[in-house]
């Protein structure tokens, strides 16, 4: 490489997030927001419920964002996004993308009623869930997005989480929405391509982003990208999309021969697990990935 030249990146340089946000170091949530806004552009209105991003956006009178932001009550993201959509539509603006941006608690748990209601009405909104797999803003309590075997402050190591992570994409797919997809910050081009694709579709769109949380996952803060990548390579968090509730496409296949332990051992939230627990997780991940492959093969054309 010619060292005299500035590094060229294929990621657009235009930013709609500022430096100086107050996320914890290594947090994937601001990285995800930054990429998503690059893909969405300035004609974007964000609706954010109580979640880590309430803090990351900055306290009054500061803001780390260059797009309008409406903070809303914990359980209301999708309903509030519906309201913004209705208002700007009636005023003649059908171009601006209205984005609900919520954590896993606000999506999988307390906000799922409003989310189900909004997507059933096929509201013209993009809902992005950044999923750090527990209530991290309140200090690491389990949510229905917490994976089997994980430690949290409400699932202590002696009695770790004993239920599987809720399959949120399948819940959204069951509503037959135009577009549902998963993404991680380890594959930024892929993430941005999905956001851009979603932006171009009318109706309800849902993107589920795995969002590693170094303090909550009990891991070193430089491991966020590595953990995001291993989640995909092990098949723990497969990257795929589902169009119109029927066409499944795996967008980044998992890597053969990467065991789940490579992902799990990065994080001390799984430190209490025994070898037989790893076997259980490996079997469950393999089974789920096979199921996804079958759905891809059996999936209908659009």
């Amino acid at each position, binding site marked *: 490489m010619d060292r005299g030249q500035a590094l060229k990146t294929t990621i657009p340089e235009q930013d709609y997030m500022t430096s100086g946000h107050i996320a914890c170091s290594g947090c994937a949530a601001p990285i995800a927001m930054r990429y998503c806004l690059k893909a969405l552009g300035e004609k974007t209105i964000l609706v954010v419920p109580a979640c880590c991003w309430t803090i990351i956006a900055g306290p009054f009178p500061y803001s780390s964002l260059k797009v*309008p932001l409406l903070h809303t*009550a914990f359980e*209301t993201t999708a309903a509030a996004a519906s*309201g913004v959509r*209705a208002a700007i539509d009636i*005023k003649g603006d059908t171009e601006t993308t209205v984005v609900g941006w919520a954590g896993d608690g606000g999506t999988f748990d307390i906000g799922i009623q409003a989310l189900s209601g909004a997507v059933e009405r096929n509201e013209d909104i993009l809902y992005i869930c950044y999923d750090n797999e527990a209530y991290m803003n309140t200090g690491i309590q389990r949510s229905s997005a917490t994976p089997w075997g994980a430690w949290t402050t409400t699932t202590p190591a002696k009695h770790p989480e004993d239920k599987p992570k809720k399959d949120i994409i399948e819940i959204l797919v069951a509503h037959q929405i135009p577009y549902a997809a998963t993404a991680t910050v380890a594959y930024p081009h892929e993430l941005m391509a999905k956001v851009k694709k979603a932006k171009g579709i009318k109706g309800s769109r849902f993107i589920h982003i795995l969002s590693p949380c170094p303090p909550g996952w009990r891991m070193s803060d430089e491991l966020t990208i590595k953990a995001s990548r291993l989640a995909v390579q092990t098949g723990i968090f497969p990257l795929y999309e589902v169009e119109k509730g029927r066409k499944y496409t795996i967008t980044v296949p998992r890597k053969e021969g990467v065991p789940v332990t490579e992902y799990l051992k990065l994080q001390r939230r799984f430190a209490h697990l025994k070898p037989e627990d790893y076997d259980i997780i490996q079997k469950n991940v393999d089974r789920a990935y096979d199921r996804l492959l079958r759905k891809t093969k059996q999936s209908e054309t659009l």
Partner: protein
Amino acid sequence: MKKILMGNHAVSYGALLSRVEVIAAYPITPQTQVVEELSEMCAQGKLKARYINVESEHSAMAACIAAEQAGARTFTATSAHGLTLMHELLHWAAGGRLPIVMANINRSMAPGWSIWTDQNDSLSQRDTGWLQIYCESNQEVLDSIIQAYKIAEQILLPVMVILDAFVLSHTFEPVDIPKQELVDQFLPELDYPYKLDVKNPCSFGSLLPPEYYLELRYKVQKAMEEAHDVIIKVDKEFQQVFGRSYGGLVEEYRTEDAELVLVASSTVASTSRMVVDQLRDEGVKVGMIKMRFFRPFPTKEVTNILKQAKKVAVIDRNISYGQGGIFCEEIRSVLYNIDRQEKPPVFGYIAGLGGRDITPTTIREILSHTLKEDKPKENIIWIGVKH
């Protein structure tokens, strides 16, 4: 143009004439006809609004808040469990200074299930920062919706327009429907100053450290205080344009030389007016005040009228458990600070909970009891309790 309308449809016509732009609503007895009619008006193109069929009242208010923040005039209607489900967001709407107007049909809270009227649903929202208007007739309902937008959009606080379940919501009365041009002249298009705008990106509702929060709440109270004069001004303007007025915050009836003043609200005020006339014919010096507004509380009016009286009787179709009738307690509270050593004794009556009828006989019983006794022996005087 006059039409025979049920109370609920009077609400719908009020919203139609106010040219609401976003409606988010969920059905609940006895409110349902309000939103059915609005949905029909939208479908027919009579009303150019977005109608969102939300999955709960909680989402109805969330959508209204967001739509209002995006600059649209919004409306919803609810009742009882729907209203109380919204409670969190009622705080949000007022704290966000969003001039939303909502109709609430007063219905009792379960258990046991009741669809009939009392005021505990709306009075439980007392401290949320919403203005509250209690209506007596279908005409007042329609007119109050239009007035409510005008008041709300001046002071930037939300307004609840309230009517009794069935006694008003399902009763048909002749209602004068004002001309659209006159309403447009009275109520100009909303120009909300603080809105979501991609050309001027701002954040709304950010984390607010202690050095700012107190001032924002102080301003909500100041807006409530300012509302007092705005309500009176808007009611006078309404009179000039439409020929009808409602006395602003309270309506006085035959109080000029009254020794006993009855305090009532909602449809109970109509019945009370008739009983006052009967007793006046019998030579009793009795008058009435109708509490049209509960928030802001008409402290000045109530004090000025009641300090002339020898006795006060308050009818509450509501209760704050462990204290008493809610209107009564607030009236006692504002009278506490008057200069006169001899304050009028305030008799607090609770009647008609869960939609039990408050008839002329009930009101006569209340007035006779007040005339007979020197002072209330108990904080609450219950009417019609079967033991």
